[in-house]
């Protein structure tokens, strides 16, 4: 029954990727920017959660909510300060700025607290539950539960609320949305807020699950989450969820087969295959340039 255990591990990892990927995909969907700093918001979320738990003695859920709130604010600040001016800039200028913001966040954190890693305190009791002969930690189940709740919440926001409708409208056609009286700037900020909050949540969950956090922890999961977003079809919310889960499971399987050093390559091989074979991803739509 080891495979079941691996599957659960994979899904736990995948749900973290999925939470980060959602932010990527929403931001890309609305302003066509690969927000490289998104992985660093994830890192900030992990640190905020860490300080909330270790310094202020808060429990898991208050820490999670504080991390989400602060990350949402940080996300909006990043958007307002750095990205807003880039709406009409070239793609390359936007991407370089995003890389710059990413480097800035990482190095500012390193400047203030050093590059050394931090051990996450144990906030969730970690019992092993035996299901079908597989030992599954209660943490895994908790993580899965939190992720599912957040995703349902996101679906609700996107499909049932006014701001969600505005987000969909702006991502479809910003000019038309503006003409229809939608405040495009606020909608974009809201997108950043929601995406960053999810990344912050992912940071806290990552810390609790893997117990080790450091200022550069966001780089690789950030890139992989982007891979997940591309895999699912960039701009598609269900795509990001599925892409994240698939990637998490694939990585866990590669590790379980004894190729753990190749684990990181798996994500990029998937990326390249999907880009070459079906660039629009699993749930994406094909677009064609008008001549």
């Amino acid at each position: 029954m080891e495979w079941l255990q691996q599957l659960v591990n994979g899904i736990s990892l995948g749900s973290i990727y999925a939470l980060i990927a959602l932010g990527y995909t929403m931001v890309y969907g609305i302003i066509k920017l690969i927000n490289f700093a998104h992985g660093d918001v994830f890192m900030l979320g992990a640190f905020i959660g860490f300080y909330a738990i270790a310094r202020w003695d808060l429990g898991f859920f208050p820490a999670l909510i504080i991390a989400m709130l602060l990350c949402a604010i940080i996300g909006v600040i990043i958007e307002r300060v750095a990205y807003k001016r880039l709406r009409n800039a070239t793609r390359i200028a936007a991407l370089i700025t995003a890389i710059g913001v990413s480097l800035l966040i990482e190095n500012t954190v390193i400047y203030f607290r050093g590059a050394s890693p931090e051990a996450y305190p144990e906030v969730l009791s970690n019992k092993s539950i035996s299901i079908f002969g597989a030992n599954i930690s209660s943490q895994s189940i908790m993580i899965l539960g939190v992720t599912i709740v957040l995703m349902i919440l996101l679906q609700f926001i996107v499909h049932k609320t006014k701001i969600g409708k505005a987000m969909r409208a702006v991502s479809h056609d910003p000019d038309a949305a503006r003409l229809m009286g939608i405040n495009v700037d606020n909608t974009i900020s809201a997108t950043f807020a929601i995406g960053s909050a999810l990344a912050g949540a992912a940071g806290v969950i990552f810390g609790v699950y893997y117990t080790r956090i450091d200022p550069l922890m966001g780089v690789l999961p950030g890139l992989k989450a982007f891979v997940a977003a591309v895999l699912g079809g960039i701009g598609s919310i269900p795509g990001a969820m599925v892409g994240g889960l698939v990637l998490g499971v694939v990585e866990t399987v590669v590790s379980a087969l004894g190729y753990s050093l190749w684990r990181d390559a798996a994500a990029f091989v998937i990326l390249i295959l999907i880009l070459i074979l079906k660039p629009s991803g699993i749930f994406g739509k094909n677009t064609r340039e008008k001549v």
Partner: protein
Amino acid sequence: MKKSKVFWGLCLLAIIFYAVVQVMISGGILDMYYQSILIQMCINIMLAVSLHIIIGITGQFSIGHAGFMAVGAYFSAIATMKLGLPFPVAILIGAIVAALAGLLVGIPSLRLKGDYLAIATLGFAEIIRIIFLNVDYVGGAAGMVITNLSNWTYAFMGVFVTILVIANFTNSRHGRGCISIREDEIAADAMGINTTYYKVVAFTIGSFFAGVAGAIYAHNFFIIQPTTFGFLKSFDILIYVVLGGLGSLSGSVIAAIFLTVVSAYLSGYPEERMIIYSLVLIIVMLYRPTGLLGTKEITSLFKFGKRGGSKV
């Protein structure tokens, strides 16, 4: 003929510069520290110019240039350390294998555009790095110990040839074909430019010289490790090209020189250095997104050449 005069004038200037520095090294005026900065500068210029032909000229957004540098570094190191070949041969081997890697990566990925291409090249570079990480023959994560063979002469020759080849390429019908792809791929195609072919050519030439830079880099330090060639290195190279001005060869050279010097002076303060670096990057992109020189060349500012196109 006026253009030819400028060309030979610049060549002469370069050779004089080389000789002066060489005399200063022989005379002991420039110590090891300055020599090492000079060589580092040359390596960075080669990397910048070799990426310039891909992004600045052809407009193909590649952010995995360190991958090709890694190929050049490792294969040249294998040639000298494992096979006992002379250094110049090793540089050539490193460059050719890097060019082949460029060809291999370029053919499938250059069908992609913009952000997708960027991410694919980043992915390829990471795969290359992870392969080196997993091959015990080249030392895995511990890396490979290498004799110091690089010197000012090799570094200078490398830069000279890189700039010469890429400038000559740019100033020909082939270079114009590449620029037309950057400007408007559909129109270029409609004017009879085989866009796939030229994209792959530019990518291969760029990879070749990234390989040369990698070979000289590998033999300048005593060790190479896969971590050196991560995407932070790719971003560094990208920053030279973008800060200098996309489409400007002299701009990317100037940016490479300037940033190498700044890095050397701030090497005692790594965190502050990176914060300043990233702030400059963001501010330049927000207030002068075309970079220092835009698509212009420094020579056009001095009115050597007659026009402001991509001339050297």
